[in-house]
């Protein structure tokens, strides 16, 4: 318990709001809650230490000690691997605590990388960075399940993403799709799911709630084959999937900052819509260079079906009454995208209208829930829309100026009204 909290309890006790019995119960509750804290801290430091030592070994070996013989260098390549395996085996056999398992697993992860790296170095084995990262990560993914380690989920996901980017966006990879990346992410999902089911309040669970969607957003571009506007559609669909995952009870009932899916889904949708609200995008990319790719179409269909099923689950099965327009933006965008093949004016106008409606919708959600963050997010969407139109329409300066003054006034007015409303509610509760 923090000293500030202890002071508050003392204050409540002095003013006879709570009695001595309640104080005792509160203290016992927090004492039991804090029992595992030192252990958790030890785990974090253990993992950081193991990661630093592992990375240090990789760097020391990367120096390339050319005074050593080939045999000596080969022995050195296997030494960290065997040491790492020994410690992992020891923590498994002797049933050591979580700290041991996580730290030794982290060390072994880097030892595997250093071992393959040094062998490649000794024999000048051809092969680019992506094939090296792939072998490394694949050799470590089973460890996630053997050790039930959350740190390894994190490491494997980061390295899988690194592989996906290196393989999918590299110079030689215009025709390469990082399917292995997808397989690796799928392989990590059961452990991640177990984590958010059993320990959803852990900080590590919320880190993963951000990391998984961020990783997929980063690598999705590598799954596009053409330079047509289909990529925009795929991204809007992916953000639709994320937003609807964020609306699932499992995530929605948590604090907003822990719900990376909802925030990334919402922000991503708005940013993609803002980009596609420019006329030149529809003129240049969507109409003139459209090339059909079966791979892109298959991924888009998969994302569309997933997003649709998630909407069904949140609205019908889980009966989430907070339905938001953001949940079905992907569907509207698919319709606009099909229309764009014949006419680019209608989708352009409708996207601007859609953004405006989304902004108003966010303001309404913020006002209903007394959430200043969401309210201002809605205002920000409208402002961004106006700023974008500032550049590509022939509106008169006076009209543009009036629009800005209007939105600025709107910021003040809505925040002021909400503050007043909140004060009123607090008063009525205290009465």
């Amino acid at each position, binding site marked *: 318990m923090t000293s500030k909290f202890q002071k508050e309890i003392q204050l409540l006790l002095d003013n006879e709001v709570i009695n001595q019995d309640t104080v005792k119960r509160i203290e016992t509750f927090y004492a039991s809650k804090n029992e595992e804290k030192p252990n958790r801290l030890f785990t974090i430091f253990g993992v950081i230490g193991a990661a630093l030592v592992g990375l240090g070994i*990789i760097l020391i*070996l*990367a*120096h*390339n*000690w*050319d005074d050593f013989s080939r045999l000596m260098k*080969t022995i050195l*390549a*296997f030494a960290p*691997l*065997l040491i790492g*395996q020994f410690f*992992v*085996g020891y923590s*498994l*056999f002797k*049933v050591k605590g979580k700290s041991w398992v996580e730290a030794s697993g982290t060390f072994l992860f880097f030892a*595997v*990388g*250093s*071992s*393959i*790296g*040094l*062998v*490649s*170095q*000794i*024999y*000048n*084995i*051809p092969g680019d*960075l992506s094939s*090296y990262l792939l*072998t490394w990560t694949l*050799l470590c993914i*089973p*460890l996630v*399940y*053997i050790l039930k380690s959350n740190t390894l989920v994190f490491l494997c996901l980061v390295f899988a993403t690194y592989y996906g980017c290196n393989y999918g966006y590299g110079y*030689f*990879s*215009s*025709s*390469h799709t990082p399917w292995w990346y997808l397989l690796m992410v799928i392989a990590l999902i059961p452990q991640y799911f177990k984590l958010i089911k059993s320990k959803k309040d852990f900080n590590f669970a919320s880190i993963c709630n951000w990391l998984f969607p961020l990783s997929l957003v980063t690598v999705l571009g590598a799954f596009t084959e053409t330079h047509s506007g289909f990529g925009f559609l795929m991204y809007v669909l992916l953000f639709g999937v994320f937003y609807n995952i964020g609306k699932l009870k499992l995530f929605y009932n948590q604090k907003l900052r822990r719900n990376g899916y909802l925030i990334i889904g919402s922000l991503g949708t708005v940013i993609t819509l803002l980009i596609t609200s420019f006329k030149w995008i529809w003129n240049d990319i969507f109409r003139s260079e459209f090339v059909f790719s079966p791979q892109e179409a298959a991924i888009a269909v998969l994302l569309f079906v997933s997003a649709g099923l998630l909407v069904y689950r949140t609205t019908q099965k889980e009966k989430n009454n907070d339905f938001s327009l953001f949940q079905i933006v992907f569907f509207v965008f698919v319709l606009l995208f099909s229309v764009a093949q014949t006419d680019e004016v209608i989708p352009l106008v409708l996207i601007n209208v859609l953004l405006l409606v989304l902004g108003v919708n966010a303001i309404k959600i913020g006002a209903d829930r007394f959430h200043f963050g969401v309210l201002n997010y809605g205002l920000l969407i409208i402002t961004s829309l106006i700023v974008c139109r500032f550049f590509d329409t022939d509106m008169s300066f006076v009209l543009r100026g009036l629009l800005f003054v209007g939105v600025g006034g709107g910021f003040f007015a809505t925040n002021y009204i909400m503050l007043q409303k909140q004060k009123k509610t607090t008063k009525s509760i205290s009465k």
Partner: protein
Amino acid sequence: MKKIYILIAFCVLALIQIFIPAQMVLSQETVLEKGKPYKFITRPIDPNDPFRGKYITLRYEISSFKTLDTTWQRGDDVYVYIKDSLGFAKLDTISKQKIVRDTDYVIGKAKWLNRKNNWNKNPTRLNFNLPFNRFYMNENKAKPAEDAVRFRRNDSTIKSVYGLVHIKDGTSVLKDVIINSISIKDYVEQNKP
């Protein structure tokens, strides 16, 4: 899961983790021992790998081939057939797949196709990378090694620079890079500024 199953699974994984690098070592050692050595004339340049350290990239004289096939795509596998000419490697032919020929081959990667057209009167040529274009070096020697060759390119003191490559059944191991008959590592040591 019962503890015994977890332990068995870990032991299997540990063996796989050892087997992969060990198998890499074994196959490379076999090529070094039994493969035929060739000298590939080359020029080094110096890049960096975040995990495996500094290396010099080698640009070989054998890097393109005249072809009539215009279906080559960037990143395609190129079967490069090599013949021996007084110890030095000479390009025999290239192919999209393995062909019956009594010369050694390595598998390179297609870079780009230089097509014959209105502006380019030369015949169509395929440019490719050979698979042994990385030579890992001590971090203090990679840059001087590149400079040694770059600054003295027109210098008569440098007579020949070549990669010594062992080839067996399509697998190749770059054993060393030689400048004026000595290893590039020793050459850098001897020619310190």
